């Protein structure tokens, strides 16, 4: 058998062995995770963080109308899943195409046309960090706040969040 063929066989067999090992290991990890009881989620995972130490119970995370002093119409506050594949129950035809949308997530304020994408990226990074043990627990079920500021209203997301924190109950 030519030496080149032997080298090809060895290299391909090594690649094949590496892939088989990775597959066996990943399957065993999944089966082990399935076999072990899931630890209860920490208390803060079931809460929505509104910032400045204010949290909202998950059951209270429903649509709210936030009246700010500077606007004749209320700012709509929804609680949405930040995951790229999460369901955004606030999705609906906007009342006005000039309405501004901002997401508040873990202290970040995301605005502009790429805000939804930025939210997804932040969530994925946070989940990846949690899996690697860099930033605490994996918070699969957390929510972000989505603010829809009516067209013509100059209220900032921070101003609306300040009001939302006061009316959280």
């Amino acid at each position, binding site marked *: 058998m030519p030496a080149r*063929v032997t080298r090809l066989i060895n290299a391909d067999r090594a690649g094949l062995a590496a892939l088989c090992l*990775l597959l066996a290991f990943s399957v065993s990890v999944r089966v082990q995770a399935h076999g072990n009881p899931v630890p209860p989620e920490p208390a803060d995972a079931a809460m929505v963080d509104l910032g400045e130490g204010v949290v909202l119970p998950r059951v209270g995370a429903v649509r709210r109308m936030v009246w700010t002093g500077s606007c004749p119409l209320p700012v709509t506050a929804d609680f949405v899943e930040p995951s790229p594949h999460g369901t*955004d129950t606030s999705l609906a035809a906007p009342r006005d195409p000039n309405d501004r949308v901002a997401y508040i997530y873990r202290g970040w304020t995301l605005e502009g046309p790429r805000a939804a994408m930025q939210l997804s990226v932040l969530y994925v990074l946070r989940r990846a960090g949690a899996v690697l043990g860099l930033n605490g627990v994996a918070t699969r079920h957390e929510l972000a706040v989505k603010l829809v500021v009516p067209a013509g209203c100059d209220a900032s997301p921070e101003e609306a969040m300040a009001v939302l924190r006061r009316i959280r109950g």
Partner: protein
Amino acid sequence: MAELLTGCRGGGPAKAPHAHAANLPVRAARGNLLVFGCGTAISAALQRLLLDPDPGIQRLTELNFGEVFATLATMAVLFGDRHVRLALTRADRAVLVACALTWFLPEPHAIYAGMTLAAAWLLARRSQDRVLADIGQIWLALSLCELWSKLVFKLFYHAIEPVEVALMAWAGRFAYPGLQASGVYLSARPDWSIVMLEGCSAFHNLSLAALIWLCVLKIAGRSASREALGALAVSAVLVVAINIARILAMLPSAEAYRDWHDGPGSVTVALVSVAASLLPIVLHVERTPCPPA
């Protein structure tokens, strides 16, 4: 399935005994590609079956069909042609092993990020090799179906959904003359309405239909001709019509909604959608003779 379709792949004379040694690297290279494709599907399926609390019966049915077709097509491409001289480079093997690390990700969708990268590598750097290009196309279509289609839909939701709701309202008025459509809400009764979210759209079903269409073409060893694209268009129309019928079936009551959204009705719809994706392209393949070699 390869036996069920009129295939145009391979079929040449058997190799002489002395060719056995030269075939060994080809077989090992095929093994690398097959294990990567199957491993990604197995990892995602295990994640859904074992670790997701409630993935939904309809979603499970749809996703598993996509993975089954892609795996069959990968095997058909790898083993269907006895003349193929497949050889992986060192970079190919490194990309496959690196992309396989996504099998450990805790999200079933994210597992397909690795397959997307591997497909992009094969299509960008190895497109001159027909087998590797075919594998890259199948993997990319599967990744689009499993991972990227919903993300793309979210980006264009405000453009797509009003059109889809208007189409549903137009079709629905034949069955429910008093049907009301307001924004993304549909209602046939004053006390019951449904809201159209991203999961209600036929967009995902279309990506699955495209994946099945591509897989059947690869299994049969055909190229994407104008007639084949016509079959895809027929499938797309059927899939959208089935989805509209499903949504309209949810309108009479909360019980009807539960049945067609989460119950046996949703599984029936998933199976009928797969059949609608499959039949036009299978009929096209069976009626069309193989192109001259």
